[in-house]
């Protein structure tokens, strides 16, 4: 348990959080890789280990199958499938990690999009024997669409291709050629064997030709501080705090989580949609006022002037404003059994803002395996990705998704069932 014992009070208070998603299907060793990361980082407890030892035995498996660590609900165990995104946690002395573990079968797109929406990094598993397959392009496309800043391709099962450098380089080249069409800026390739642990946590002795880092080293050291937008000041008002007490009778604080930029006390600001201007009087927290605040901090802002502000409004800087739009295009991922109703009406949510909307035009669907546009089929059903035009009942304050994942994202809610039926990235 050396890793965990190293996490003393001092270093633990100085750790960063990295959220990553793992994409892969049943056979490419995703569960084994996660099991390996947890096991080799000593994040597995005895009772958990005993439980998987037990289920490995019961299933007649020779070795303790680390993949069982990620077994979930009984319904899933019975069917041998994964229903949904599962979240897992581990920490090393350097970072705390949240894994959004998404299954690889049907409903795949819906789940991967969900897992990807909050991730800093995506691990895409590629079977070294098969090389780049349709699924690899699908995963790459979704990672790019959801704006995941870093993608790590783990070329797995290197032990089954004699740890061949040539095989690795060929796959790497294929993926690089394909990725040139995508938006992801930071791409890495690591040859691994999740089963044997090569280059996962420990450097492989079987691949002396590989000069890069292990997966764990990359996860611990990749630069993530710039993943938030610190340029464009966006403060969606979430809740208005009015203490109503004698001492604080006139206190009006605007509570929210900063969606972009750096706000400072004394800043001239503008409130949308009213367009009123004022100055930041203070940025308050329970632990005292702060001079400046940045994404993703949750704070309470007070203004010098009395301005009428409510949930859904946005505080911004006068010289850097979001787009105020009621007609716009999004890349939509459909997530419900019931397909998109032509000219159907939905609730739309963007930051803390809510309106009603209708889909006015379906421009094209994307074949996520080939990236081709499909223009002659306008039926949008579960797991489809399409570019559509929306019209909202009131203006929203948005940025392009590629510029800001907080202000550039929307969800659609079915008015009859209240279910979240789609996620959208503003283009």
């Amino acid at each position: 348990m050396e890793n965990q014992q190293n996490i003393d009070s001092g270093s633990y208070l100085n750790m960063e959080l990295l959220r990553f998603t793992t994409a892969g299907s049943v056979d490419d060793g995703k569960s084994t890789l996660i099991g390996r990361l947890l096991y080799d980082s000593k994040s597995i407890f005895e009772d958990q280990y005993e439980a998987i030892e037990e289920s490995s035995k019961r299933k007649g498996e020779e070795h303790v199958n680390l993949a069982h660590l990620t077994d979930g609900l009984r319904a899933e165990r019975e069917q041998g499938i994964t229903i949904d995104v599962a979240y897992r946690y581990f920490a090393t002395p350097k970072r705390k990690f949240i894994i959004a573990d998404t299954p690889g079968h049907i409903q795949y797109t819906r789940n991967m999009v969900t897992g990807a929406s909050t991730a800093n990094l995506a691990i895409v598993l590629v079977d070294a024997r098969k090389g780049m397959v349709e699924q690899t392009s699908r995963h790459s496309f979704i990672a790019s669409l959801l704006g995941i800043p870093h993608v790590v391709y783990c070329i797995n099962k290197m032990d089954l291709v004699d740890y061949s450098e040539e095989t690795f380089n060929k796959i790497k080249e294929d993926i690089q050629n394909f990725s040139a069409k995508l938006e992801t800026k930071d791409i890495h390739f690591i040859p691994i064997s999740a089963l044997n642990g090569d280059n996962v946590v420990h450097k492989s002795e079987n691949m002396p030709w590989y000069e890069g880092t292990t997966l764990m080293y990359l996860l611990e050291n990749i630069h993530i501080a710039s993943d938030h937008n610190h340029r464009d000041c966006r403060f969606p008002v979430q809740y208005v705090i009015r203490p109503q007490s004698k001492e604080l009778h006139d206190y009006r604080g605007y509570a929210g989580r900063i969606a972009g930029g750096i706000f400072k006390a004394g800043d001239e600001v503008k409130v949308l949609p009213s367009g009123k201007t004022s100055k930041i009087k203070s940025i308050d927290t329970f632990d005292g006022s702060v001079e400046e605040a940045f994404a993703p901090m949750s704070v309470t802002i007070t203004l010098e002037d009395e301005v009428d502000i409510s949930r859904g409004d946005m505080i911004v800087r006068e010289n850097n404003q979001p787009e105020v739009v009621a007609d716009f295009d999004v890349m939509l991922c459909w997530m419900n059994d019931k397909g998109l109703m032509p000219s159907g009406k939905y609730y739309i949510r963007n930051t803390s803002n809510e309106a009603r909307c209708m889909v006015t035009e379906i421009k094209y669907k994307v074949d996520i395996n080939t990236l081709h546009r499909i223009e002659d089929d306008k039926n949008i059903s579960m797991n489809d990705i399409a570019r559509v035009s929306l019209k909202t009942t009131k203006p929203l304050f948005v940025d392009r998704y590629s510029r800001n994942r907080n202000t550039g994202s929307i969800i659609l809610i079915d008015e009859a069932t209240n279910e979240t039926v789609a996620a959208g990235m503003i283009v």
Partner: protein
Amino acid sequence: MQKYSLTHLKELESEAIYVLREVAAQFERPALLFSGGKDSIVVAHLARKAFYPAAIPFPLVHIDTGHNFPETITFRDEFVKKIGAQLIVGSVQQSIDEGKVVEEQGLNASRNKLQTVTLLDTIEQNKFDACMGGARRDEEKARAKERFFSHRDAFGQWDPKNQRPELWNIFNGKKHMGEHFRVFPISNWTEMDVWQYILSENIEIPSIYLAHERNVFNRDGVWMDVNDIILRKDNETPVKKIVRFRTIGDMTCTGAVESTADTLEKVIQEVAAARTTERGTRADDKRSEAAMEDRKKEGYF
């Protein structure tokens, strides 16, 4: 650490505060389920932060099995007074007296499962539309798939196959009459995070989390409290041990561990070196491989 980046604890804190505010904004009658355990204490602390300088805009609700550790109840009452919150108690004893539930019999009898009925009754009586709790995804595998905003039907049931997708930080709390939500602001925290946060924020917790001398007996490798409620077999002899509790639930299903960790710092060292999960001392999870999943489907926390 770079200037414009947060430590993981600060980021988790910010996320939890965001969720708490979202609940206050999206629901009419929210409540915070408060057990007196460390996780719900942390959520209550975060709620103070979220609405500061105003008071917490919802009541704390305790489902009292009547079999709580006396230390927990004392702590609960002092805590509520200190932070000036409103407390609502739902009593399992009352549910038993009213004949709504039947007490389990025998050696391993526990009121843990009965709580679900009292909880659902309390929700209905007070017309709560969202109940926040301190459950974490790292606790148990049925919890690993739980949402921040977890939709429950009119019977309080959780349907794992029919959960709303949750993307970015946009939460959908829309519901029909009679339905409600369970909300888990510290979903992404681990046991270690909770302890580190308690230490760094100097949060008070019930004394039984720290090592103390106690009369206990051993059952299936777990040290159980000696009291009038838990029946003992003849060979289950009481002994004095230095123990502490890793979780605080109902006395009948919460075991202690042998430990000399009598300060928070020592507890953290112990958690870091621990070889079993904290729910390893919970008899309620040991009933079957899917015990938690089944209880959640019925409407458990």
